[in-house]
């Protein structure tokens, strides 16, 4: 009982990473994702690692079940019970539109209007109960929703962040008549002011509950049948993990589960390799996702919009996405400007070279035509690629309109794609006041490693760090992620005369609640930490800043007082804006508490190449480099021993990615099996 398995289920493949702590060995596996029931693929993947389920102590799972249900609007039939006068809050959003230019957008709410019922009740902003809740009406509404086929229900009352009494009574009444556990109470999910954000988060939780519940149930059964007796944990969007039972209660926290696990793994690998500042990038079929890690901590965003109007507010790893993936289509606009995306051929039909019906050239087609991708043995187990078709498409759609020959056109596509990816990297680094020279760029997923060399040059990053198994990074992240539970509580009060006893009481109570939740999961932990943070602002401002409070819970509480809060606010404000606005009153909006259970670390040295492979190229292949064909050495990446130095231009191949080392760069295999790419040192 010593193995831990990380599982990341993607659209095409299910990736697994097994760590056997007793023997100190790791194993990776990749199997096709099973549909519609992904749990079969998970069980088959575990078998493919060679592990017996009875020997597995923990399975940690990054899942896209929630994300896909949201994007494809395939959640459950859910109902909403809400305050009289406000059933349309979810559909009215914050009065926005999908695109700045063009007025053709639409929006389909996750809970349709006929399943949103109102009951008499009202709490005012100061917490006063103006109208007590009519519980008979609540029960009647619940029965009506059941009669209309609802499988899950959300109880969401206006101003419940200020006083949840009515909402609590109503949720209890609903639970009496509701036949299953799919009852979401909004202020329990997110106890924060702003009705649309809270209501949307809670409604989406209800929408996902039956879907994720069914999946986890079937996964649990499949694992059990295989003899699994350990813990099943699920990765949250914030990169922490939670027990499967908690995930069934809070499915909305899994919306970015897979990508978050990837960022966690990247953080861990980079830190071990000596880099605390990292920009991760994941180039998929349609998008390029970037995240920032500063001093070993990944940047977090307070909320995200999964699709227009589908807002989830809960802390999550901040992921900046632009439409530039391998499948992004290149075209010349009417003004004669080459554009990449936002249209994409995705993975189906995919690039022209896949020969599956798309005839518009993509970034991948350009890479193939330039010889950077091995057309005879592409990654992902495909048959050979149709290079001629890719050439024809590039010539027709890009070359002719721009007056370029086919190779110059292919090079142009890669250059413009690189420029737009570089823009995303600048956005999270330079534009946040960071010096790119302090950062390493770390690609994960299959697509990015071809482009990292050009990107570090373009943005001025010090180096790129290509992990040993880019394609299974998210699965590895599952194994290293810590346990985490998050809470928020709205205070909405001036700092002068703040009720510190109440604040202290909340901090202690939420810390206790978090620790109890971690204990329930029964997972071995190295330690537990509380984190406290306030959202604060100057009176009159709209945007809050995050104010960390460096406090711990002792016998007499946290010891928080007004002065501690003021000092912390001023330090945080000065860091953010460079100066204080003395004399203006300060307000405290929300308290955020998260409790982290540190899981035992694993040593990334275990990933290093075991034996001494050869550093000789497998072959020479013509690759288009800097305006001409160059016979370029091609290496088997995984066979390269520690310490090998590969001068560019060079192509490094492995099952799940292809790395291109640009001329002028050098790749070096470090002690963990990573490839560190940087400018060649001057001779």
């Amino acid at each position, binding site marked *: 009982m010593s193995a831990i398995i990380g599982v990341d289920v993607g659209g095409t493949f299910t990736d697994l990473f097994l760590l056997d702590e007793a023997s100190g060995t790791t194993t990776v596996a990749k199997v096709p994702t099973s549909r519609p029931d992904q749990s079969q693929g998970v069980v088959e993947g575990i078998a493919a690692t060679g592990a017996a389920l009875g020997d597995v102590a923990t399975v940690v799972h990054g899942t896209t079940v929630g994300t896909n249900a949201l994007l494809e609007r395939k959640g459950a039939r859910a109902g909403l019970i809400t305050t009289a*006068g*406000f*059933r*349309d809050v979810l*559909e*009215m*959003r*914050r*009065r*926005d*539109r*999908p*695109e*700045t*230019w*063009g*007025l*053709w*957008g*639409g*929006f389909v709410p996750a809970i*349709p*209007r*006929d399943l949103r019922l109102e009951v008499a009740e*009202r709490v*005012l*902003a100061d917490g006063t109960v103006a109208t007590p809740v009519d519980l008979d009406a609540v029960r009647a509404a619940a029965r009506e929703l059941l009669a209309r086929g609802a499988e899950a229900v959300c109880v969401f009352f*206006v*101003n419940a*962040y200020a006083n949840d009494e009515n909402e609590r009574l109503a949720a209890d009444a609903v639970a009496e008549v509701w036949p299953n556990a799919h009852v979401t109470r909004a202020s329990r999910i997110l106890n924060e*002011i*702003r*009705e*649309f*954000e809270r209501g949307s988060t809670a409604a989406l939780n209800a929408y996902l509950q039956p879907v994720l519940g069914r999946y986890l149930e079937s996964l649990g059964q499949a694992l059990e049948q295989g003899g699994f007796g350990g813990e099943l944990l699920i990765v949250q969007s914030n990169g922490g993990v939670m027990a499967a039972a908690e995930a069934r209660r809070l499915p909305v926290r899994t919306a970015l589960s897979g990508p978050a696990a990837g960022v966690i793994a990247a953080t861990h690998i980079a830190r071990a390799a000596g880099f605390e500042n990292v920009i991760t990038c994941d180039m998929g079929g349609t998008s390029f996702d970037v995240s920032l890690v500063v001093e070993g901590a990944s940047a977090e965003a307070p909320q995200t919009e999964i699709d227009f109007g589908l807002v989830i507010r809960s802390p999550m790893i901040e992921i900046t996405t632009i439409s530039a993936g391998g499948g992004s289509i290149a075209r*010349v*606009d*009417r*003004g*004669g*400007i*080459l*554009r990449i995306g936002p249209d994409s051929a995705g993975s189906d039909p995919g690039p022209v070279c896949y020969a599956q019906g798309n005839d518009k050239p993509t970034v991948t087609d350009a890479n193939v035509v330039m010889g950077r991708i091995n057309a005879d043995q592409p990654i992902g187990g495909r048959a050979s690629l149709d290079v001629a078709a890719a050439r024809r498409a590039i010539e027709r759609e890009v070359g002719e309109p*721009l007056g370029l020959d086919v190779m110059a056109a292919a090079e*142009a596509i890669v*250059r*413009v794609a690189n*420029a737009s990816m570089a*823009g995303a990297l*600048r956005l999270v680094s330079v*534009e946040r006041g960071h010096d790119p020279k302090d950062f390493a760029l770390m690609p994960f997923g299959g697509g990015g490693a071809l482009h990292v060399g050009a990107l570090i040059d373009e943005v001025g990053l010090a180096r790129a760090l290509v992990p040993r198994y880019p394609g299974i990074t998210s699965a590895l992240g599952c194994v290293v992620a810590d346990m985490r539970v998050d809470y928020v509580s709205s205070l*909405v009060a001036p700092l002068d005369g703040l009720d510190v006893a109440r604040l202290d009481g909340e901090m202690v109570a939420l810390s206790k609640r978090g620790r109890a939740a971690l204990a329930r999961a029964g997972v071995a932990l190295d330690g537990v930490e509380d984190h406290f943070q306030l959202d604060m602002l*100057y009176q*009159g*401002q*709209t*945007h809050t800043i995050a104010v960390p409070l460096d406090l711990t819970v002792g016998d007499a509480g946290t010891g928080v007082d007004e002065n501690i809060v003021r000092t912390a606010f001023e330090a945080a404000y000065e860091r953010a*804006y460079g100066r204080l*606005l003395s004399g*203006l009153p300060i307000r405290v909006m929300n308290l955020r508490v998260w409790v982290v259970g540190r899981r035992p670390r694993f040593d990334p040295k275990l990933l290093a190449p075991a034996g001494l492979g050869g550093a000789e190229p497998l072959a020479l292949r013509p690759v288009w480099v800097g305006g001409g064909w160059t016979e370029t050495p091609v290496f088997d990446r995984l066979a390269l021993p520690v310490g090998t130095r590969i001068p560019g231009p060079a192509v490094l191949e492995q099952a799940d990615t292809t790395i291109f080392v640009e001329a002028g760069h050098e790749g070096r295999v470090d002690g963990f099996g990573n490839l560190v790419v940087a400018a060649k040192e001057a001779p």
Partner: protein
Amino acid sequence: MAELDPVTLAVLQGRLEGIVDEMDATLFRSAFNPIIAEAHDASHGLYHPETGETLAQGRSGLPIFVGVMAFAVKAVIDKVAADGGLEDGDVFIFNDPYEGGTHLSDFKLVRPFFRDGRLFCYLASVGHWHDVGGNVPGNYNPVATESFQEGMLIPPVKLYAAGVFRRDVLDILSANSRLPGSLYGDLNGQINALEIGARRLGGLLDEQGEARIEAAFHELKARAGRLMRSYIAELPDGTYRAEDWLDNDGIRDEPLRIALAIGIAGEEMTLDFTGTAAACAGPVNISRSTAIASCYVALKHVFREVPANAGVLAPIRFEIPETSLLSAGAPKPVGGYTETILRIIDLVFVALAQAAPERVNGCAYGTINALSMAGHRADGRRWVLFSFFGGGHGGHPEGDGLNHGNAPISTATIPPLEILEAAYPVRFRQWALRPDSGGPGRNRGGLGAVYEIELLEEDCEAFLFGERGRFAPPGVEGGGPGALNRFEWENDAGPRTPDMASKTVDIRLRRGQAVRLETPGGGGYGRARARAPAAVAEDVRLGYVTAEAARRDYACVVDGEGRLDDAATAALRAEAEL
């Protein structure tokens, strides 16, 4: 001029847009007032050193500013030409709406950017300040007859002279605002944005050299013109006319006509506003620069790919009668400019629908509905609730209009009702979609909203500045209009509505009384009778359309539960065709 290959050009375009985007983001983050911070009522760009033409503009700025800022920069260029004395490190500030467009609330900062002693270009920032004086807090004075009643008017003056901050200018500004703290915060945010822009542009020039960037500016403009010409060339030659009315100007209760004839001849377009009403007494006048900017916004909603630079307007000619309300000069009141430009945008949609119905949508709700409620709390503190409200978007070729969207001139979001209730002594009784407000059509207009707000303090005053109370947002391609804007309030004698439809001042409420605003939906797209009966029945089931309206507007017989009577519907539709 240096030659640029098309690939380098694409790369440089991205870099330049990145710089102005970062200027936008800098101000949004650090601004004090929610109209900038939350509603993004601001914009930034790079402008030509001699003509003031837009060279590059941020992608997230308020759409209307994208067109208007070139005029603001030109105002500074004209001043410098007259007075001389331009120095590196200068920053001009002003809000003159007759020169720089829009209204007094929008403060423009213009900064010359020098390279080796030579003026290379201008950087500019505009943001909507919370209060700039005038007769009413928030500056939407529905009964202003001169701009003096709308706020302070500052001509272009130096806020920085050769890098030295002029405290005296700030003192003048602060002394003329009800909210000097907010003003100070926003001003600093704009200065920061200009500083970031200058630093990033300097970095790009260090890396690429002046010649390449100048060549890129030149080429991007030429290509934008080419792009616009190619779209115009696709439209059949001819003249496409539309007219619409403003309810009134808030002073005299007479409708004000706005007329537009779009002429297409080959690759050129003329927008001719001959026949538009004369400049009026109340605050719905706009300056010529604002009129041109609003045409730009409308065209960019139709031809989305055209970039934000001066080239777009090269193939377009404007005829705007100098005496009309679209070409107002000082001191005509312009505070309600939003209503007039929304009407211009609707006219462009309606006229272009005749030429290219596949490109156009029904009109959006068409009014900003600026509502103010203000009073004093029991402890004497003053409070002012001031907000704009949403409505429906028009049906379009691909589907029904968006419910409760924002105005086409802006990307502003509405504050959460919980934030409003926490900040002001009010409670919302209702915050809901408004059934039957979407214009009937094959693709229905989106729904407007109902907001009902009750006072929790002893008393307050309120005013509303709105439109579309008498002339509904039109549909296109045979689609019907959205519902009219509707406003009422309670007083001791019972419910009241404004004499001027959607403009009123001097509302007094007492504790427990409320105002109720019902906003228009969008216009429909295509004939209502062509809408699939099943879609109409679904609308009834979801409560977007009532059974009565389904019968009246769509000739569909549906019961209250949304069950369609096929036979009766077929009979009714057949009868309607006769």
